[in-house]
């Protein structure tokens, strides 16, 4: 309904004299997806609540001992961030694919890679960013000290965009598959998330061990740069395959 209504705008915008495609396409995709996300705020809220609940489950499954929780905290918060990202991935393309909007998007004169990059950015702004901003509150439940919390948030800010970028490839590959593709998406994407988990949780661990987090955060940054360059193309290829 609302999604189809916004499509003519892209044709209009691109058919004008201004053919500065990539950036304009990115901007269009970001605003459109953000607007759509804002119209289903409840869904976003539910995803954040999922994150909070998963984090709250771990202390209940063991003795809530202070040192143990502080040791496990970074890892638990990161695993929960991975799962929250995974859970929100179908939203990236699935509804657009179901009502045919994705086909129109792929036909638009803007480069598909740019449009997908815009969609991913909007996805991160509505899932990764809130998760990172919520993390300090949850970290307090795990008795993490101030410096650890700062590094945790820095790691999440660098790492969650990678999750959205890699996830876009998986979401595009599983578009329209039998059985919804939810658990299949997890099987495809979670192994690829491993380095992000290791460097992200490792950054906090090494701060707690007194080693400093520069190495881990730099590696996350390098991973983000690599993912930014590579994954929009892979995701665009996957979308084209799904639309064939």
């Amino acid at each position, binding site marked *: 309904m609302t999604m189809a209504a916004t499509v003519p705008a892209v044709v209009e915008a691109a058919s004008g004299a201004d053919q500065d495609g990539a950036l304009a396409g990115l901007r269009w995709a970001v605003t459109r997806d953000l607007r759509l996300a804002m119209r289903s705020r409840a869904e976003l809220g539910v995803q954040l609540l999922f994150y909070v609940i998963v984090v709250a489950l771990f202390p209940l499954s063991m003795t809530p001992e202070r040192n143990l929780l502080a040791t496990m905290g970074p890892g638990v918060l990161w695993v929960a961030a991975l799962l929250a990202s995974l859970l929100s991935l179908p939203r990236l393309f699935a509804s657009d694919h179901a009502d045919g909007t994705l086909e129109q998007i792929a036909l638009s004169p803007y480069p598909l890679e740019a449009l997908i990059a815009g969609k991913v950015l909007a996805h991160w702004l509505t899932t990764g960013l809130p998760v990172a901003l919520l993390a300090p509150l949850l970290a307090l439940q795990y008795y993490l000290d101030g410096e650890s919390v700062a590094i945790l948030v820095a790691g999440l800010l660098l790492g969650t965009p990678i999750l959205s970028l*890699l996830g876009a*490839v998986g979401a595009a*590959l*599983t578009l329209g*598959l*039998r*059985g919804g*593709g939810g658990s*299949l998406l997890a*099987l*495809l994407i*979670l*192994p*690829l998330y*491993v*380095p992000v988990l*290791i*460097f992200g949780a*490792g950054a906090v*661990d*090494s701060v707690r*061990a007194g*080693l400093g987090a520069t190495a881990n955060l730099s*590696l996350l940054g390098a*991973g983000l740069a*690599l993912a930014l360059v*590579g*994954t929009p193309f*892979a995701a665009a*290829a*996957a979308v084209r*395959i*799904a639309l*064939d």
Partner: protein
Amino acid sequence: MALNWTRFASPASFYPLAGTMIPWFGWGAAVLTAIGLWLGFAVAPTDFQQGEVYRIIFIHVPSAWMSMFLYVVMAFWGALLLGFNTRLSGMMAQAIAPTGALMTFVALWTGALWGRPTWGTYWAWDARMTSELILLFLYFGIIALRQAIGEPRRADRACAVLSLVGVVNIPIIYYSVKWWNTLHQGASVKATGASMETTMLAGMLVMSFAFWFYAIAVVLVRVRAIMLERERGAAWVAGLPEVNR
């Protein structure tokens, strides 16, 4: 010599070529396995640290090598498919995946059996074991994606994209696990520091070739089956003597 290699990109001409190659590689694998096991179990000396237990490396190391090598080969066929859109490439990638997963599983299993008597545990969160486990998940992901997509052409291309994303990630996964491991465990467990006896190395190399030949033979058998299944409506399949029998 102008070798027209693209001729064999067509299933119709590759099918008989694969048929003639299978016995060579199959028997080659059998002979090399016999030599390799003889070298490994009869000729190679007992290890002064680990005793007889170490002899599992003649299975373990070749399967671990093949598990990684086959993933790269699969990604290579995926790249060819996306680049040149050749039907055969997708079939080859499909045929390689199960053998790659099997090799990964064998490497993990023999590693566990080796670890129990030497390290005292079936499983350690060692860098190599952990990344091998993730490699197994990557293989499962590719096989599951193909199963979920009914249409073979789309499955080929989707798996090609996934295997290429995976092949970029494998070194990153390996090093991330390695650094994580050193941070957590200090000195990691190493099998042997000493240099290897020549006969041990020879046995391992021969077994590696045996596994390689086995993989080629099995992949070719499987790719022939895939060709027949996918092209069952084609005229060249209808003309095959084994189909008409």
